[in-house]
């Protein structure tokens, strides 16, 4: 079944948490505001229904580069240097975030300077400078971000981004927002100008304002963007992606440890009726950077395999060190389930991957989520969800995402109440979808000796757990039950049997 997930994008339904004006047929932008408060800071956002899905064929990364040239390359009235010189004394931030379907220009500024910032933000999108020298600099930077940083300096994100492309091959999400090196190198300033006119348009725009602002700010921001083109290119249709082969992608790279990413595209989204049950199951299975999840407990705490092991039910990007960081500006109509294992010693790469699959199998087999786990996790989320939207910029981000995804309910406002109603039976019933999905998961390993790894996977060779030894060669003493589980895990079939199930790509060819 190839169900189309195309949603009415400019819904007229109000988002209860925020005042929300629907966009008009004439192309006036939608507006999402939070009630003004007495805080010293003001958060401004211009959120466009535009992203990597709008990159034309052969121009992967164009939307990202375009947004960056706009945000950093100066405006008609301010050169790039003058822009920095203006923002810096205010300690004002101005960033563009580009995801698959959403590009958000955000500005955070002290209320002393909000009027100045409104004018600048408006100029950034409506009157960008498109300076040739800045374009050249930022294209170099974009190439280096992929060629030198992602490929060579960040194995975990390399694995995660490779998984994203693997899962969504042939889909509009099929290339990462940062783009591909070969394409980026060919982009021209003219491409950037044309892309801005195609996708950064009034009919795709939602204006957001929160914090210690005065009511005139909204009207002024509307006026500041009025010169944008009224209508952009038609929105890209997002078809539901089906899982497909190969089962395993090995990104071959000389590295002392192996990064592991596992995932599958699926139809579950924030609008799914079982979302709260999924949320509880996800957290109990692998909460991000907390210790309560089964993956974290059993891979790291019981075995010392690595630094952390987590699971996600929607696209996730780690930013900074804050575990409870908000995931905003990445509203997506197509969902995904993923598992992230922090790097493991190469000798344990296959064991760790198998251990994650083993634990997933147990959740839909011998060891469904227990009442105690569900109750504990519900308690956790009831408090933890409060941390996702602590400041005005985060609250605004969630309100904008609600607007982008449509629907009638404010996501965060209802999530805690929804979670409170979930029962253990609900959690295990929702999670039972894993019975099918566990065999459709795709796996990315960033590791050296790819040919050897491929051989081991296809032969289903045993991969015993290697515990870290002390100076006398002793390993920590482990309970018999754990050692017995190790024996089962080391032979767990990965589900790859034919040559085509395991693909090897040298790192230099990734995102080329």
């Amino acid at each position: 079944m190839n169900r189309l997930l195309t949603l009415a994008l400019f819904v007229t339904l109000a988002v209860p948490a925020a005042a929300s004006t629907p966009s008009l047929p004439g192309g006036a932008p939608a507006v999402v505001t939070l009630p003004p408060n007495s805080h010293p800071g003001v958060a401004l956002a211009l959120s466009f229904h535009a992203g990597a899905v709008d990159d034309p064929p052969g121009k992967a990364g164009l939307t990202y580069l375009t947004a960056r040239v706009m945000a950093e390359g100066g405006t008609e009235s301010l050169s790039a240097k003058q822009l920095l010189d203006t923002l810096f004394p205010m300690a004002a931030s101005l960033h563009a975030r580009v995801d698959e379907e959403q590009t958000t220009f955000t500005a955070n500024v002290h209320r002393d300077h909000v009027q100045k910032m409104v004018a600048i933000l408006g100029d950034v999108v409506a009157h960008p400078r498109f300076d040739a020298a800045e374009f050249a600099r930022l294209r170099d930077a974009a190439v280096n971000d992929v060629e030198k940083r992602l490929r060579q300096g960040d194995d975990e994100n390399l694995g995660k981004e490779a998984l994203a492309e693997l899962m969504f091959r042939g889909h509009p999400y099929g290339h990462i927002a940062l783009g591909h090196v070969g394409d980026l190198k060919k982009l021209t300033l003219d491409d950037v100008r044309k892309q801005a006119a195609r996708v950064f348009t009034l009919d795709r725009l939602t204006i957001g304002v929160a914090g210690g602002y005065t009511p005139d700010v909204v009207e002024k921001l509307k006026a500041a963007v009025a010169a944008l083109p009224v209508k952009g290119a038609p929105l890209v249709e997002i078809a539901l992606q089906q899982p497909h082969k190969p089962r395993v992608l090995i990104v071959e790279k000389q590295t002392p440890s192996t990064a592991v990413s596992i995932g599958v595209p699926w139809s579950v989204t924030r609008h799914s009726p079982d979302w709260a049950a999924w949320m509880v199951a996800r957290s109990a299975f692998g909460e991000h950077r907390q210790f309560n999840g089964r993956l974290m407990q059993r891979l790291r705490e019981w075995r010392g395999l690595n630094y952390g092991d987590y699971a996600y039910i929607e696209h996730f990007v780690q930013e900074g060190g804050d575990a409870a960081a908000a995931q905003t500006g990445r509203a997506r109509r197509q969902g995904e389930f993923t598992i992230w294992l922090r790097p493991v010693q190469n000798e344990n790469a296959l064991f760790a991957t198998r251990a994650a699959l083993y634990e997933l199998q147990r959740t839909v087999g011998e060891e469904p989520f227990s009442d105690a786990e569900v109750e504990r996790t519900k308690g956790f989320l009831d408090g933890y969800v409060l941390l996702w939207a602590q400041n005005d910029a985060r609250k605004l981000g969630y309100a904008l995402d609600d607007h982008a995804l449509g629907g009638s309910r404010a996501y965060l406002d209802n999530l805690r109440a929804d979670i409170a109603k979930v029962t253990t039976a609900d959690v295990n019933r929702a999670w039972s979808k894993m019975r099918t999905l566990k065999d459709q998961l795709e796996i990315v390993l960033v590791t050296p000796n790819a040919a050897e790894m491929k051989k081991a996977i296809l032969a289903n060779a045993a991969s015993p757990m290697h515990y870290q030894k002390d100076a006398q060669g002793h390993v920590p003493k482990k309970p018999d039950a754990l050692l017995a589980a190790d024996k089962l895990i080391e032979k767990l079939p990965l589900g790859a049997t034919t040559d085509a199930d395991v693909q090897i790509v040298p790192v230099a060819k990734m995102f080329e």
Partner: protein
Amino acid sequence: MRAAFLAAALAIAAPAVAKPVAAANTKAFPFPTEVHTLPHGLRIVFVPYDSPGLVAYYTLMRVGSRNEPEQGRSGYAHFFEHMMFRGTPTHSGEDWSQTMTRLGLNTNASTWNDQTIYFLYGPAKALPTVIDYEADRFQHLDYSEDQFKTEAGAILGEYAKSASNPGLILEEKIADTAFTKHTYRHTTIGYLDDVKAMPSGFAYSREFFRRYYTPDNATLIVAGDFDKKATLAHITRAYSGWKGKLDAAKITAEPPQTAPRTAHVDWKSPTLPRLFLGWHTPAAGDLEATAVQSVLNDYLFGPTSALHADLVLGRQLVDSLDGTWERSRDPSLFGVEAHIKKAADIDTVNKAVLDDIAKLAAGHVDTARFDAVRSNLKYGAILRLDTAARVAITLALSASPTNDLDALNKLYARIDRLKPAELSAFAKKWLTEANRTTVTLTTGGEK
């Protein structure tokens, strides 16, 4: 019995109530704070902050990788931070974790050169349980050798997650070149060989706990939505039995550097060439020098600096230019790291940086940019303090180097009085050739 004990503890605590360290909202840390010190030395700081239903509970221990003078023991302050989650005779590690989970708390810890900070952040209603569990683990930590050995694997994993980034190896080389005696010579995660040898260090880890995890080396910060009176009573009761006195190992001072030093890292895979330049400069205890460095780092290397305009925007030789400096307990490095597009340009970039510093040392200061940096610091401080957690971490980090809870306000007041000429004088005195460490990193011997 409990009530009687509580009354006694309060009586002891009462005389130590300090005046608020900051009252006027014009200060860099604008929130009124209330400080209490218990007889055994534990300092408690309350910062009421408008975050309805949320509270941040941070424990600052003034111990970090700086406190690792013994050969082969680099990385133990950080390793020890991990062990703090392993439980006590009363509450096992699993109990601690499950209880904090059930309460909906964000829990973690971080270790750096001078301090280790343990944080819990979440619903205010969790506070009583948090106090009991935190008081218990800081006083009665207990773990087995097998738990210790297993956790060593997680540390190796933490090293592994950064090892694919040339930044970690460059950092190791910088520290090891610029410092010859002082413990800033190694990074916080520790040398890889020491990390690999950690499973054999059980006894040392217990000794580490005895030396540094004492009430007189701890500051407890509670920020957000809580009742001060009830919280103080509860904390006083729960922590009153904490034993021990700080027994710090001696840290050898770094002798003055007398000649320039250089080092190179040959990286195996393609990466942007990197150039680091750093100079030994005074520690946070020197308020003048700290105020100057706070401004000077952005003045020389920030987004509106002359070097950024020339090397990043103008000639476009440099992909990114980042000043590296932070307030530290002992003299550390003031520096800059450039990611350069082509290795052939390393010398050109090096010369540009040195020329710019020479100009400053000769007395040329752009006063408009000097003022812009000070304005940035002021507004940046206000805008950053927007959650209870950020309030707590800001206070913990600012207090750590000198143990002064008012350090941030004193620093910003000094920055207000700073004169452009002080930047020049500082550059002339400290940013000299003899005091300089230069480290480069390129791929495959490329130069």
